[in-house]
């Protein structure tokens, strides 16, 4: 069964890129512009994984992670944060928020593939 992945990013180019990436990797991508739209998307259909940008208008990636973790039905959904921020200590921040993984922008296809395969496997078994 094809895994469904929700991707939230406010940058149109990156949304486009991620939808092509996911399609290329064989996943079904649901692409939204911010955290609020992401919450609406997961409410409609529980995805297998959520990828979210950290800095977005309305609702950012960290807050989105917290909200998702509060919902018992979504608690098991792996969350992968990605950000173009280069500041240090990013890792402790996303771990503190309850995310399962983090990749820095720009991501390469191979890094993304590896990360998604492992996180989806963990998510199913865990």
């Amino acid at each position, binding site marked *: 069964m094809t895994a469904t992945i929700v991707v939230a990013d406010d940058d149109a*180019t990156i949304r486009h*890129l991620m939808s*092509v990436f996911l399609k290329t990797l064989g996943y079904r991508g649901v692409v939204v512009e911010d955290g609020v739209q992401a919450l609406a998307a997961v409410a409609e259909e529980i995805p297998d994984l959520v990828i979210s940008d950290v800095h977005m208008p309305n609702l950012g990636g960290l807050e989105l992670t917290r909200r998702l973790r509060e919902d018992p039905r979504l608690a098991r959904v792996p969350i992968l944060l990605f950000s*173009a921020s280069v500041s240090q200590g990013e890792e402790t921040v996303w771990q503190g928020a309850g995310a399962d993984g983090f990749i820095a*922008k720009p*991501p390469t296809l191979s890094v993304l593939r590896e990360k998604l395969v492992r996180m989806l496997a963990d998510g199913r078994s865990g």
Partner: protein
Amino acid sequence: MSRVPIDEAGRLESLNRLELLGSAPEERFDRITRLARRLMGTPAAVMALVGVDRVWLKSVQGLAPRDVLRPGTHFERALGTRRPYAHSGSEPDELGMRSFAGKSLAEPAGHRVGVLAVMDPQLREFGEDDLELLVDLAAVAERELGRSAFDQLLDEYRGHATWAQSVMDNVAEALVTIDQDGRIRSINRAGVRMFRRPAGELVGQTVPQFLAPEDQGEMDRIVRTHLAAPAESFSVHREVAAIGGDGTRFPVEIDLGGTWITEDETMLVAVIRDITERKNAEARLVDALEKQQRAIEDLDRISKAKSYFVSLVGHEFRTALTGIQGFSELLAEQDFSDAEVKEFAREIHNEGKRLTRMISEMLDLERMESGRMQLNYGSVDLNRVVAEVADRFQAATQSHWMLLELEPELPAIEGDADKLTQVVSNLLSNAIKYSPNGGDVLMKSITDGAEVTVSITDHGLGLPAEALDTVFERYARHESKDRESITGTGLGLPLVRQIVEMHGGRVWAESVVGKGSTFTFAVPIHRSSA
């Protein structure tokens, strides 16, 4: 004859103080000896002062003035008693006298220091009447001796007073004495200079009268309290403001001490120092410290802003690079349809342009700030600039509506059309970016004949007052919770300010948090010759 033991030491001390031993004749004593000689009918009359071992004949009538040794003389015997002393004998004494009547003379303290005597080389008896007359004359002589003592005291007092006055007048501080009623009794020269009033205006008044109104109450209270009971070691120190005769205000420090001068009268002494210099020095020091503190804060702010800018630019660059790297990776690794390839290429191209724009903005600002950029002057219709920029942005958004309110008779200005377009673009881009919930953006132009003013008003997040000044500074993007998701290089507004100021104009912001912001720039119609 009663002999009273004599306090010889005290007597001699008093005698010395009179400064009469060895002194020249004086009319005031000669008058008495003349009278004595005539009234007593004796050939000789003498007023003698009895020293340690000699007798000094201060005033002599009918006898050559001479020095007489004291021991065994009638003078010494007469000195030994308060009563009159008389002697007659066939053997002449050391002055060749056979008859002697004398009365000891006491100075005001009671010490017998001399003798008034009448003498006769012939034998004669002195009767009671004679001795009574001698006692009366001696009383007059004693009064004269008393006057000598008084003059002596007066001289001494004058000496002390002069000395005290010169001490008071030569100290740098104002010395003020305050009497029982709290009034100024005396003030020294330094005080007169300090208060810039003649002593007559100060004496008789109270100290609080010459202080600033806010300090009068407390000083009045202190003076009253301590006049009532001046403790031995009491001393009050206060820093207050004084008012000079010319109305100027100056800081002083007052040390107030007091003492009992009689059993029921007290006096206070105030030492007043003008501390203007010290205060100025303190103020300069505080000023310098504050300046230093501000400089440190500025440096700190700039350094924070720079590191923030670096992370911001890094974020923007990485976002653009994500598209370029990702799409090119896709093209390199997989086969896509022609349409897809074109689409990816367009994305790569756009992101490349985005990088270029960011880089040129940075370079522009750098060039302008270092004065290496020239404006390309021409005639610019700002209404057209506003309308074109509005159209361009309107085409890219559906959540915001550009409303134009343009002055129909707007004169063209002398300026750089490209740079002014950049100003309007940056301001409009911010207006849209910082009103994430959409809404109207009002763009207005007006003129007063000398300059053209363009304002752009949004209904967005707004800026707090403290951010309005710094928002035009380089790297000083205002941060707040609701803005953290909005990215930007922080170069837009500094660039706007640079361009507007190069045109001889100015730019400012007005805002209400939660209601929106208005950014306005005004540029002169004619470029200044400067």
